[in-house]
């Protein structure tokens, strides 16, 4: 017992270091491995120690789970990673629900006296912990599944709103709490049906809670649900009085909450706004009036302008990811640089569909690190830039965020490409960005549209330069 718990302490320390190291670029990868080592230690020590009755189930469970996890993680495309994380996170929540349920079942089988033994906890304590594990874990499970469906496009990204939605959710939560009270205070006549009812309500709550949130906010939702799954693990730890579950779960719960807040800030949202704002649905109803017209340009036009430019800023967005245009873009950038042009890539923190999306794509295409610039470094010099090439970006260059107080994205920091001398926007057609808003940038006098798939457009530009 002593050695197991010492190993658990060591594992917890490894988790602490792991989380700390994940927070800075230079150490992140090592940090993840440190934390994996902690997990391995905790699992191995648990396997060696516990007076395990049914080895068969355990081996089967680990083999099946391990293989599925391995294959999923190896197969997934880079762009699919955020939704995969959502899925994993949901499974973590599910595991906490099931652990709570399994313990409840064991109490039912053995009776309280045998279950509690001469341990320190009383029935009420155990039941409260089971209730919390099931409640938090259940919401995490289905909430993450909905997030997964929305992010992967298997379900429409826009918020599903209906009247009385918040009231309904509140009522479901209330019902779950009341049933929880019944469970806890009738502790000695254990009602399995009540527990199952609670589980079902929580699963429903997870679905209904995430439905009204737009797909663009899913990364924040996942971060939040990640924090929840930590707390669910912690609650499960209180059920079985296991310190490493309590500590690791709570570490994730607390640090996940901080990360959620940080991510909200990067999108200029508040947490309340994300969960209850129904952001992205109301918007579409609004009539928007825009002056000017969208002026299409040909690839040759763009070629002549680029030929003459002294400085070019590329602003990639989600469309570059869709078109997988990063390699072509990098080629164009290299050609321009060869011509003596000052080339920069301006990366908006929430461009694409996951934080760091653009960084990953451009790194994949071997864009030199020196050419990458953050939004805050580019904005001050943008008015001296000859050409801004907007490659499948939309919301992150929408001047309404800076200028139109009535816009729902007003206040979100953007890359001020509209201040550049000439702006070329590459997109396929009239499609809106994630927020569904009209982008006034496209109607500005200094903006020209280059319609078509971004990869093809860039490729034609490259061949103009080469030919």
């Amino acid at each position: 017992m002593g050695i197991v718990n010492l190993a658990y302490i060591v594992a917890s320390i490894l988790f602490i270091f792991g989380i700390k190291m994940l927070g800075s670029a230079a150490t992140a990868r090592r940090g993840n491995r440190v934390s994996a080592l902690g997990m391995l230690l905790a699992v191995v020590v648990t396997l060696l120690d516990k007076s395990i009755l049914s080895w068969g189930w355990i081996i089967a469970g680990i083999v099946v789970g391990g293989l599925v996890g391995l294959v999923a993680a190896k197969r997934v495309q880079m762009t699919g990673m955020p939704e995969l994380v959502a899925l994993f996170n949901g499974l973590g929540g599910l595991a906490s629900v099931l652990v709570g349920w399994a313990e409840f079942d064991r109490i039912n089988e053995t009776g309280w006296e045998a279950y509690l033994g001469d341990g320190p906890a009383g029935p009420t304590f155990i039941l409260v912990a089971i209730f919390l594990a099931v409640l938090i874990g259940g919401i995490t499970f289905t909430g993450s599944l909905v997030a997964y469906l929305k992010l992967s496009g298997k379900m429409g990204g826009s918020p599903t709103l209906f009247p009385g939605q918040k009231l309904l959710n509140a009522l479901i939560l209330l019902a779950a709490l009341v049933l929880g009270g019944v469970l806890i205070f009738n502790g000695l006549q254990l009602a399995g049906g009540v527990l199952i009812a609670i589980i079902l309500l929580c699963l429903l709550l997870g679905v209904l809670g995430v439905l009204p949130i737009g797909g663009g906010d899913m990364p924040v939702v996942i971060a939040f649900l990640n924090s929840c799954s930590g707390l669910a693990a912690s609650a499960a730890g209180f059920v079985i009085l296991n310190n490493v579950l309590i500590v690791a779960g709570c570490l994730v719960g607390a640090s996940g909450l901080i990360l959620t807040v940080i991510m909200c800030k990067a999108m200029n949202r508040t947490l309340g706004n994300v969960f209850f704002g129904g952001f992205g649905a109301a918007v579409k109803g609004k009539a928007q009036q825009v002056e000017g017209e969208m002026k299409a340009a040909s690839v040759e036009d763009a070629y002549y302008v680029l030929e003459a430019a002294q400085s070019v800023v590329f602003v990639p967005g989600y469309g570059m990811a869709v078109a997988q245009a990063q390699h072509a873009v990098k080629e164009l950038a290299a050609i321009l640089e060869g011509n003596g042009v000052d080339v920069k890539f301006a990366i908006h923190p929430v461009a694409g569909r996951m934080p760091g999306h653009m960084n990953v794509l451009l790194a994949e295409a071997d864009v030199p690190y020196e050419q990458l610039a953050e939004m805050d470094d580019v904005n001050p010099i943008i008015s001296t830039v000859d050409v801004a090439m907007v490659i499948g970006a939309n919301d992150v260059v929408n001047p309404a965020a800076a200028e139109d107080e009535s816009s729902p994205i007003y206040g979100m920091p953007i890359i001020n490409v509209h201040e550049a001398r000439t702006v070329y926007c590459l997109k396929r057609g009239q499609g809106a960005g994630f927020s569904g808003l009209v982008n006034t940038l496209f109607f500005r006098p200094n903006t020209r549209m280059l319609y078509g798939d971004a990869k093809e457009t860039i490729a034609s530009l490259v061949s103009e330069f080469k030919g």
Partner: protein
Amino acid sequence: MEIILLIFIFVLAAFLGFELIQKVPSQLHTPLMSGSNAISGITMVGAIIATGAAESSFGSLIGFFALVAATINVVGGYLVTDRMLAMFRKKG
């Protein structure tokens, strides 16, 4: 006393968790989320204990599913985080 100490541990871990994350560059948000999600797969330890101690075949079955879910979370979570981080250059 032991219960109190477990609660104490929970409280200290919460404060520590809050302090650990300060400023994170935005391209690390996803890996950090993914990496700490893998840690929350620590329920795997709970699932092993619950499965190992199960008293009914129904209990074993639930435990088994818990273990499968938690193991996917752990194994997949660490691997996918590692892949994500591998995509960043040293300086990126």
